Structure formats: structure tokens, C-alpha cells
């Protein structure tokens, strides 16, 4: 069966339509719905959304590739995003990244072979008072140090 919005996403999509004066404005919300359902923006997703939003495949791809949070490649079950910008750097984000690289055996941009962890470096997460901050999937973890990071990783590995 070809990929499409499931019932939940279709309902959310329909609810969004009257909130905007045209379909193009639904591009970002639709990309979010797709990523929520499939984990990444796959080529079938781009084609599907183009059809639904009456835009060209190139238009959807151009938008999806502009925004860093849309994954154009599959990511692991846990997407670990390490903030690297100034306040977090001052707070020790480099140590956190090193620790993650060592523990997971991957560098930023890579996914572990078992497909469980993806490591990414990101720009300012807006959690500067909680430096260093990492975001795992959708959850912020602030004021990290090596001990709390290792504890967190152990929990995720057991899951």
C-alpha cells in the first residue's frame, strides 16, 4: 500500500484547512504531520504532500530542505540533539558531545548501527539558563553533566 496520512493525521489535516486562506500555508504543518507519522520526510512523502497541497514536488522539497528540523533521512529511535551555541559552549557542551560520541561510537550526523540513536549538533535551543542543554526527540534535558548524561543513556538503552 502506498504511504498516506493515517486516520489521526488526516483528521488533523482536515481541521487545519479552514484555518488558512490557501493550501500552500499548510506546507509546514503537513510536513510536521508526515514526520510525526513516518519519522522522516521520505520521497513518497514529498510526492504525497505535493499532491495534497496542489504544489510541485520541487516546491515541497525546497521547503523541506530549508528547515533543519525536517529529517530528509531516517533518524534513530532516539534523536539526540546537542546544543552547541555560545551559552551552552560556555556551560560545557563540548564535553557533553565528546561523552556522547564515546558512548555511542558515532559522530554528529550519524546513526548507530542498531538504528537506536542519532546524534546531531544543533544551534541555540533557547535554554541558555539550563546550559548545557540537549534535546532527545522532543524533550529538553538541561544542566547536563557527564554523570546525568550517562544515567540518561543507560535508561534509553534499556528501553
Amino acid at each position, binding site marked *: 500500500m502506498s504511504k498516506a496520512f493515517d486516520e489521526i493525521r488526516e483528521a488533523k489535516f482536515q481541521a487545519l484547512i479552514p484555518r488558512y486562506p490557501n493550501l500552500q500555508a499548510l506546507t509546514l504543518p503537513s510536513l510536521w504531520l508526515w514526520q510525526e507519522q513516518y519519522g522522516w520526510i521520505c520521497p513518497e512523502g514529498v510526492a504525497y504532500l505535493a499532491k495534497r497541497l496542489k504544489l510541485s514536488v520541487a516546491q515541497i522539497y525546497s521547503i523541506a530542505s530549508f528547515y533543519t528540523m525536517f529529517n530528509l533521512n531516517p533518524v534513530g529511535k532516539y534523536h539526540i540533539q546537542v546544543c552547541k551555541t555560545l551559552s551552552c559552549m560556555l556551560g560545557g557542551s563540548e564535553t557533553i558531545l565528546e561523552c556522547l560520541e564515546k558512548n555511542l561510537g558515532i559522530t554528529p550526523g550519524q546513526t548507530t548501527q542498531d538504528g537506536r540513536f542519532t546524534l546531531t549538533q544543533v544551534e*541555540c535551543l533557547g535554554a541558555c539558563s539550563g546550559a548545557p542543554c540537549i534535546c532527545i526527540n522532543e524533550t529538553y534535558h538541561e544542566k547536563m553533566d557527564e554523570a546525568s548524561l550517562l544515567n540518561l543513556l543507560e535508561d534509553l538503552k534499556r528501553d
Partner: protein
Amino acid sequence: MIKPIVSRLFQVPNSHKLEIARSHGRYDSLKILFSKSPEEITQMVCQSGLRGKGGGGAPTGDKWKIMPSPKPGIPHYLVINADESEPGTFKDRQILEKDPHLLIEGIIASSYALHVKHAYIYIRGEYHFPAQRVQEAINEAYEAGIIGPKSEFKLDITLHRGAGAYICGEKSALLESLEGKRGHPRLKPHGKEPEWLFEAPTVVNNVETIASVPFIIQEGPDAYRSYGTKDSPGTMLFGLSGHIKNPGIYELPYGVNMLQFIQEIGGGVRDNKELKAVVPGGSSCSILKADIIHKVTLDYESLKRNGSTLGTGGMIIMDESVSIPKAMKNLLEFYHHESCGQCTPCREGTGWMDRILAKVLNGNGTKEDIQLLLEISNTMNGKTICVFAPAVATMAISYIQAFPEEFYVLCAK
């Protein structure tokens, strides 16, 4: 301690819930609001001297006044800029998480004044949790008939998530993004005119700005003016991060001494180290050396006099151990990554500067490289569609001019 304007409920447990928010006076301003005309509300905001709190500090009333009078068939839009992404800035997140009903109350008031029937909140994609809180609050407000078809004013509010692009904090890029396009800033008009969303006149305001409006309506413009300074009236959520003992967000009237703020409220520099420098309001501001902090006060005018800007009020504190070239490299990487790529001086300039500074930090730089960094900065300034490139240029020049010895010592060759 002053009576807070926007942070009053931050310490109240479950203040994000409608019931609790209401019991603390949220939505009380609506009664006064609807007893006045939209024009009177705009007039009150003008009189209060409220200034935009997203970084620019432009008078909010001026933005409102240039909206055309309503015509049938042409909607007006209000867009709330919750795309808080300026490094060192995390203030709007506090409102979004802890007091979303204050924001909604402000949106209702502003929409009423501007003849808006549909307001959008554009929130940065990384703010999953704040977005969830705001959406829950919007749902509660719909159900309670505060907004939506059951309400007196029939306002719709839609939360729209960004997806990780710093440039979408620039209002015209934000509007492009909201229209379902790449976040490319638009060319600015010569004369004064409103913003445009879906080809209709639009006002874009920051979260904290709109959250200040209910106070002005309830207590009056003079009450707002009783805070702060003559030219910077009111309060702001000031942030502290970096090497500071008590990082966080603190609401203060404009005009407080910066050194006093850092020492008394911030608890001073962490680990008893010496203060080296402060980035006053987000990474795009010029850096301030420690020796002038004592004469700086937290208002737009004082920061300008001292060669920087107040920006978003999010201060990054650096202690004596910080390498200024390394800090600048960190920011150049940020700007290189975040440049939208539309204008050549910015797209190429940020990357070029990043590569030069990398070379210098690796010990392979020459004194000419530092000169080149300054030259590129000057080339980037004023030659692009938006203020991104000028911000990078100002930042880079200020780091090199404030701490030249740190750059030249790396260029031994």
C-alpha cells in the same frame, strides 16, 4: 521589588491552566477593553510608550497606527513572533510555558484594537513543550468561550510551528514561512506601511510585547510609564546565562545598572572568577568589556551610547577563562549555518569568515587575516536584504576591536 507586569504568575503552580490563571486575574482586562473603542486602545498603547521586546525596540503603537482602517472583504492579521532563537535569549519561553493565558489575553486586546479576526502564533519548532502548553491554553479558551464562535469578539487563534530556522525570527521571513515558503526575508518598502500576510495588512509583534498589553489596558498607560525610564518605559524580562551564579529570567524595569544586576540578582560570576565581557542582548549585539559594565544601564539609550544594543535583553556572561576568538568562532558557525542564503555577501561572507577564523585558531593565521575579517565585515554591512549580515558584521568587528591582542597573538607567523 517592583510589582511585575508579565512575570506575576511565573511562580504560581499550574498557572498555565485556565482556572488558576483566571483566579489570578487573567482576562480581567477584557471588560475594560470592550468598553472602549479599538482606536482608544491603540491610543493607550501609544501613550504607554510600549516598545517591541523582540530585539528592535520599535514603539509598538507606531506599528499599530499604520494599519489601514478596516474595509469589508479585506482581513487584518496579527502574528505573534514566538520564534525566539537569538542565542542567549529564552524569555518568551517563560511566558509560553508558564502563563499562556496572559499571551492570549494580550492577543485578544491587540486584535480588537487592530480589527483582527484571526491571529497566528508562530512558534519555533524546537519549542515542543511550550507549543503544547500554548495549544492547550488555546483549546481551553475556545471551550470557555473566551475566543472562537461562542465569544463576544469571535477571534480565532492558530498556533503555527516553525521547523528550525533562526532567520524566521525576522518578521518578513516569518511571514514567508507562515505562507508555506522558505524563510527568506522580504525587501523592505521605502515608506511606512504594515507587513503583509496572505496579501492582507498585518502586524507582527513579539510574545512579551503582546503580554504587556493587558497591564496597560487594566492599569492605564501612566501606570506602565511609571516603570523604567522616560525613553524606555516599562519592564523587560532580562536573561542571564553563561558564567553566572544564578542563570535565569528576571523582570526588571528598564534603567537598572548592568553591573548591579549581574552582581546582586545574578549572584556575580560563577566560581569566583573575574568578569571578562558581557554580550548584552543576544549574540547579535556588540560585546562589552568588563571595565565599562558599571556605567551601563539596561535601557535602549544607554546601551546605544556604550556602543552596543539592548537587543532581547538576554545577557551572556563570560569569565576570564573565555577565549574571545573561540567565542567568536562559535557565533560565526551559528551565523554561517543560519544564513538563509538569499544574498551573496551574507551566504558567502559568513562561511568565509568562519574559515578564516578556523585557520587563525589552528595557528596558521596571519595578521592580514584579522584585517581581512574586518574588511569582509564592512563588505557585508548594509548590502543585504535583511539585518542578518549587518548583525554578523557588527558582532565580529566588536569582538576584534574590544580584544585585538587575543586575535593577534594567535597570528605569530
